[in-house]
């Protein structure tokens, strides 16, 4: 194994029973965990949705700047948001936003010390998944009524 020149990596070196050194996987390590369990799957999904939503904020900025720039710029933004691709993007973002928000509440619950036993973890996990679906459908229900 090569000499460590990185302070953080140096703490990640473990030893096998025969004494040889190996590099411990960094958490959250996508190749180590089974990603199809509700626990690890939802954990990485919170990170992925947070990152996608971060990129999605650019659409919020575009919408606000277009509105501030005048009717023409606003019309261009409206045209995109009501196009097929635009609606697909917005639909995806709404689902992502709801998932990250609801799973975020679950994180806050853990942070205050509740819900660590496995049955509760699985139950709250399912609640988040179902609530994400419900809130996304509700959001688009409202949007369609507003549009009509």
């Amino acid at each position, binding site marked *: 194994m090569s000499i460590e020149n*990185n*302070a*953080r*990596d*140096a*703490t990640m070196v473990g030893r096998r029973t025969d004494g040889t050194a190996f590099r411990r996987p*960094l*958490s*959250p390590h996508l190749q180590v965990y089974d990603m199809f369990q509700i626990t690890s799957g939802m954990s990485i999904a919170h*990170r992925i949705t*947070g*990152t996608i*939503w*971060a990129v999605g*904020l*650019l659409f*919020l*900025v575009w919408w*606000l*700047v277009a*509105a*501030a720039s005048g*009717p023409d710029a*606003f*019309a261009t933004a*409206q045209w995109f948001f*009501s196009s097929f691709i635009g609606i697909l993007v917005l639909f995806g973002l*709404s689902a992502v*936003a*709801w998932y990250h*928000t609801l799973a*975020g*509440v679950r*994180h*806050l619950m853990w*942070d205050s010390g509740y819900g660590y036993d496995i049955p509760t973890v699985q139950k709250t996990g399912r609640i988040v998944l179902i609530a994400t679906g419900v*809130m996304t459908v509700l*959001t*688009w229900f*409202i*949007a*369609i*009524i*507003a*549009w*009509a």
Partner: protein
Amino acid sequence: MSDVSKVTVRQRSALGRVRGMGSAKQGSHHWWVQRISSMALLPLMLWFVISVASLAGHSYADTILWIGHPFNATLLLLTIAIGFQHTASGLQVVIEDYVADEMSRMAAVLAVKAACTLFGVLAALAVLKIAV
């Protein structure tokens, strides 16, 4: 029997002590600010997503009127400020987890902070231009 009160338990590894690169003493603060921003964003997100959905298909004039209302403008500014702060520190954690090289890591974190500041100010200015 040794005197238990004199026993010092060191949590840092021998290597960690030799290198002398210990905690920068901001980890728990970063963690706590991320929780506070999450709690603040929860009601803001509920309000924001539902509001934007109910604006679907509305005219330019209606949209300007909505953004310019003092109540909506205030909540929009809070969503922008807290949202971009939460995003910058959230993405920082993701980068720190996956980018091993120190220089690339620092460059990526600084780039994210710069982008979040830039877009945050831009969005806030757009709201203020409409509302004021």
